[in-house]
């Protein structure tokens, strides 16, 4: 149960609170006035500080993303002081004995130096890497939260698109960083990326030469990646995050349905002091967690992997988690290749690698627009969907996660094989089937589950919650006692709009007057698939009637499931 906030309600129609009364002069007041007179601090403060934020744990996922990004910036600055982005060869003479005298690149050598010869270096390196993993993970889970609650709907489509940009750059940030130390794993990752680039039909080879300044690996890629990793990508991320957060403030945050919450208000705490205290505290918790991770858990022990050598691969070499699904896709994909003219088309790399990423990114980016096309919904939404109330969307989302998940397992197939003593080939065959059937089954099950949750919501709204007390009536029947639920819960269960299925309409109204909307048969069919099966939520009349019946005892309620039209 969410805590009931002290119901600070903010009107969406520009109702900022009045300025605080000036009491005794605060020591900081002088500076504040000075700034106010020059940059309008008061106005900014008034606007920002009284902003109301709703409270829910899932709204903190975006904050985890923000904080881990900041941690990466801070620890990254430390690393740049020592890291040498060069592929020039040296003979290692640092204190890690097992690499003594081995010819390795400056990049790898300086990474070993950070790990073994610079005070606190290994800790910072590990915090940086763990935070990078958590950054991409929290961005992804945050995106899922936004997806499943429908927070991308009007007016937040643009912020969703900015989010897609953030998602893309978060992946690139992680990948470029992973490739810098020039150890065997980062080289293997680069080799993989090189394979993807080369598999692009027609321009592949040219693109490879462009990126690597010659044939892979060349001797420039590390310094190029370094520039991207420490300057270009963080810069873009910073700019996009600013725009992203500005839009969150501008639109005001969405909220989950509940008592007193409407599309026209925000119920929660003011940014200052309550939310700021919580958010600030949370920053330190995230930071502390990352320091603990960095201090306690080994990550990316590059000294074990050895220097990169294009001729070598190691059993059990894997990319970081967010690239794992593409690696898996390439591993389980059948070995297709065709030769057309003098050109080679490496489908086995292009389709799973470049193709899947394209499908995922395009699908996600277009989704807000596809959904509103399917539902015909053009209204603004500030109240979030409970996932069950958008059963097809939820089912699609879960199907997508299952699809992704099976590819992901493919990326760890060798480790699963050794760990659980399974055959590599059997896993591959299983996964080839699973990536196709798994999502379909997940879709069906999830949609059913959503509908049965809707049904039980309807029951609860109509008949209250079961007490678990069985009562025997005078004529010998048994009955479970129900108590009515609170008005707040009643509201939460029944507030959602249930969009109607779009009917095919050629634009001519019944009277022959051309109407404004045109709906093609195709769109109507898809709309029926998308919205068709919903459990009709009870209307106020239904609830009154149910209460009436309840008083009279024992009349079955009408069949709940009805097609909407």
């Amino acid at each position: 149960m969410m805590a009931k906030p002290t119901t600070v309600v903010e009107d969406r129609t520009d109702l900022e609170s009045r300025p605080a009364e000036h009491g005794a002069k605060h020591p900081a007041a002088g500076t504040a006035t000075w700034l106010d007179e020059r940059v309008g601090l008061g106005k900014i403060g008034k606007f920002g500080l009284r902003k109301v934020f709703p409270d829910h744990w899932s709204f903190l996922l975006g904050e985890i993303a923000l904080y881990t990004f900041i941690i990466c910036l801070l620890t990254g600055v430390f690393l740049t002081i020592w890291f040498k982005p060069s592929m020039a060869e040296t003979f290692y003479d640092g204190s890690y004995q097992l690499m003594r005298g081995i010819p390795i690149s400056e990049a790898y050598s300086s990474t070993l130096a950070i790990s073994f010869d610079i005070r606190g270096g290994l800790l910072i390196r590990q915090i940086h890497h763990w935070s990078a993993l958590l950054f991409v993970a929290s961005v992804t889970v945050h995106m899922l939260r936004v997806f499943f609650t429908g927070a991308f709907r009007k007016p937040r489509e643009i912020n969703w698109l900015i989010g897609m940009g953030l998602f893309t750059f978060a992946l690139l940030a992680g990948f470029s960083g992973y490739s810098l130390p020039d150890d065997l794993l980062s080289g293997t990752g680069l080799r993989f990326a090189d394979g993807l680039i080369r598999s692009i039909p027609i321009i592949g080879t040219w693109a490879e030469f462009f990126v690597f300044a010659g044939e892979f690996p060349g001797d420039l890629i590390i310094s190029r990646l370094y520039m991207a990793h420490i300057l270009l990508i963080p810069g873009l991320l910073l700019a996009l995050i600013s725009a992203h957060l500005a839009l969150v403030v501008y639109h005001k945050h969405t909220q989950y349905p509940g008592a007193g919450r409407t599309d026209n208000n925000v119920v929660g705490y003011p940014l200052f002091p309550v939310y700021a205290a919580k958010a600030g505290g949370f920053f330190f918790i995230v930071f502390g967690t990352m320091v603990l991770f960095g201090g306690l858990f080994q990550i990316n022990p590059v000294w074990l992997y050895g220097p990169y050598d294009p001729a070598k691969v190691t059993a059990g070499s894997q990319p970081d988690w967010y690239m794992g699904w593409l690696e898996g896709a390439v591993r389980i994909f059948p070995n297709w290749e065709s030769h057309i003219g003098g050109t080679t088309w490496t489908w086995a790399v292009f389709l799973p690698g470049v193709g899947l990423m394209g499908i995922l990114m395009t699908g996600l980016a277009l989704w807000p627009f596809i959904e509103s096309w399917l539902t015909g919904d053009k209204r603004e939404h500030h109240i979030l969907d409970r996932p069950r109330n958008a059963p097809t969307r939820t089912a699609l989302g879960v199907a997508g996660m299952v699809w992704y998940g099976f590819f992901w397992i493919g990326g760890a197939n060798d480790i699963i094989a050794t760990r659980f003593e399974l055959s590599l080939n059997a896993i591959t065959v299983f996964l080839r089937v699973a990536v196709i059937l798994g999502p379909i089954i997940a879709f069906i099950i999830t949609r059913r589950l959503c509908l049965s949750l809707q049904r039980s919501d309807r029951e609860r709204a109509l008949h209250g919650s079961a007490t678990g007390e069985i009562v025997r009536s005078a004529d010998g029947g048994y009955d479970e006692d129900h108590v009515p639920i609170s008005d707040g819960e009643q509201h939460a269960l029944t507030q959602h709009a249930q969009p109607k299925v779009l009917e095919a309409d050629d634009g001519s109204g019944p009277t022959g007057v051309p109407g404004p909307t045109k709906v093609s048969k195709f769109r109507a069919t898809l709309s029926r698939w998308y919205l068709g099966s919903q459990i009709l939520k009870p209307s106020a009349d239904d609830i009154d009637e149910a209460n009436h019946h309840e008083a009279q005892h024992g009349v079955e309620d009408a069949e709940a499931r009805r097609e909407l039209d």
Partner: protein
Amino acid sequence: MNTESKRKRKAQARPWVLVMALLVVGLAYSVVVPPSSSAETEMTQQIEEGKAIFDVSCSSCHGLNGEGLSAGPSLIGVGAASVDFQMGTGRMPAARGEAQIPAGEVVYSQEQIDAVSAYVASFGPGPAIPESSQYDPEGLNADEIARGGALFRANCSACHGIVGGGGAMPEGKHAPALGDTEDVHIYEAVRTGPQQMPTFSKDVLEDDDVRQIIGFLNTADEAPRYGGLGMGNHGPVSEGFWIFLLGIGGLSAIAAWIAKKGAGAR
């Protein structure tokens, strides 16, 4: 005359030389041969003992003369090293035919293993059980051990994984982790190439190279775990697992707690 008398004397001396030579040869023979003849009997004894064990526990699969049956390959020419490796790691005698016979409990004493090795070696020439100077990494310096690491990464880690942690192979097989393997068995594995593993001849890896690899594996095994707990030691896979479980999971739990707490809430 001079020469005449000389010839005479020589002629007289001839039988003595012959006798002396015979004596020397005989003595030498008595010095050299008796022990070796007793060694021979010991050898034949050992082979006999080996044969006895072999007939009981091995011949059902490998054939009475090690010629190979459907249940096991021919052992002619595999050498003593192969037997010492297979029995010394507890792979042989196999319990049943499997995709890959796992290492297991060693059921024979080293003496018995030596006996069977000697017997199998008598089928045909093959790699012998190495002297300790061939595999013992004692006395290697830091640079040589580091070089062993480079050799290991170049020749072995494609199958055995980073620092010999083990790896999967096609068809349900795997290259085992090397952390607990005895030095001598590492050497023998390299020279005899069990299963899918290639045989590395002395032209490819000299004895010193193998020693360096063994030295590297031992040192890496004893090295402290810099950076903290390995948490499964599966590289990025375990790292990803933990960041979701503890990172996202743990912080979400804390987030839920924070969202519940509020000034004057509840």
